[in-house]
């Protein structure tokens, strides 16, 4: 989550002061991402240092001090909006690793491990859905943020379902004897983030 760019986006609507930026940030993200006021001021100082925002010149550092976006800031914001987030190199996913470990561990039922995670994820999704059920009709930002979370969690559940099915089918015939593990090769090729 780039607070830096979120603040630039808010300032592109016109000059604003710190507390106001914090309130507007939280309102626009459906209050799903709480932000403390210290983070706002630290970020504003860095943006000012980098010439992306400017503030009233006088020494009055009171909470009502206005910040404005500069031309460089507007350019930075436009570039960021169109830059794809880093989805190309997969993160090392703890859940994937747990399932891979469970397959090889004697005395562990991998389907039971998968189900434990599936239940946890669905319980989490129930909580997000309840949030949407109760409030999303009146808050578009919240509805969008909740949907993003639901789709993300749903993708993980779908992976678990697919792994479950694949392991069940593989279980019908004994897996071939383990050769040298292929995982490190794949990992190098894919350039996994560390």
């Amino acid at each position, binding site marked *: 989550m780039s607070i830096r760019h979120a603040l630039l986006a808010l300032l592109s609507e016109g000059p604003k002061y710190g507390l106001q930026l914090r309130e507007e940030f939280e309102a626009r993200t459906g209050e799903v*991402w709480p932000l403390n006021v210290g983070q706002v001021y630290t970020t504003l100082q860095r943006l000012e240092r980098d010439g992306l925002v400017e503030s009233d010149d006088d020494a009055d550092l009171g909470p009502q001090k206005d910040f404005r976006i500069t031309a460089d800031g507007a350019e930075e914001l436009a570039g960021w909006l169109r830059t794809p987030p880093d989805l190309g190199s997969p993160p090392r996913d703890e859940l994937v690793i747990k399932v891979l470990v469970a397959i090889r561990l004697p005395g562990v039922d991998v389907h039971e491990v998968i189900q434990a995670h599936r*239940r946890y994820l669905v*319980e989490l*999704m129930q*909580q997000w859905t309840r*949030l949407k059920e109760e409030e999303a009709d009146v808050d578009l930002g919240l509805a969008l943020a909740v949907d993003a979370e639901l789709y993300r*969690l749903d993708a993980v559940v779908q992976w678990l379902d697919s792994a479950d099915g694949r392991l069940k089918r593989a279980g019908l015939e004994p897996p071939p004897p383990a050769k040298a593990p292929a995982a490190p090769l794949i990992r190098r090729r894919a350039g996994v983030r560390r």
Partner: protein
Amino acid sequence: MSGVLELRGVSKTYLDGADEVYALREVDLVVEPGKLVAVMGPSGSGKSTLLTIAGALETPTAGEVIVAGQSLSSMSRDDRSRLRRRAIGYVFQNYNLLPGLTAVENVAMPLELDGVSAGKARAAGLRGLEELGLAERATRFPDQLSGGERQRVAIARAVVGDRRLLLADEPTGALDSANGEAVMRMILATCKRGLAAVVVTHDAQLASWADRVVFIRDGRVVDRTSARSGPDSLLTGEPAR
């Protein structure tokens, strides 16, 4: 609280040649009034069989099914049919509306079959459509309605009259996400009126609307979510970085 639907030790077997195959194995499930339960599992896990047995469309090989306080196995065939018509509503993925009848005629039909006069049945049908925002579509035929509208008509038909139990099999399967969400909101709204509902699905987003999710695998209930907690815990996480 006793359930509108109770399954006690329900098993269902089929013969595959000389082999006995279990579609369901000792399933226990209670759905209280006002509650929505989702049954989640892969295809072939037995979840649709569970629904047809709960809806008295099929009889179990062993165990007991109780709907609205009455044990199905102790009822005559006629009584069971009557209970099915009066107390249980079904929603299917492909809507199952009769193409030759208008929306309101489709909704009113279960009441007419049960001996309610045509005028009263139609009035109840119109009320049902109105509640789901479809009053102005009442005289359209199914092929003049969108997928989302057809499913809303199917829900209105499933809950018309004094239904106590709503059973839905992948009710949002053919719909886009906005219409799917609208359908789940309607099912929840009918639960708030005191109906009990069971939705079977393989879709976690759909299941997440339920008060409780039951996981089924190879005919057995293998797990269930704990009681649905509120969303507050989601909003007290670490501040954004």
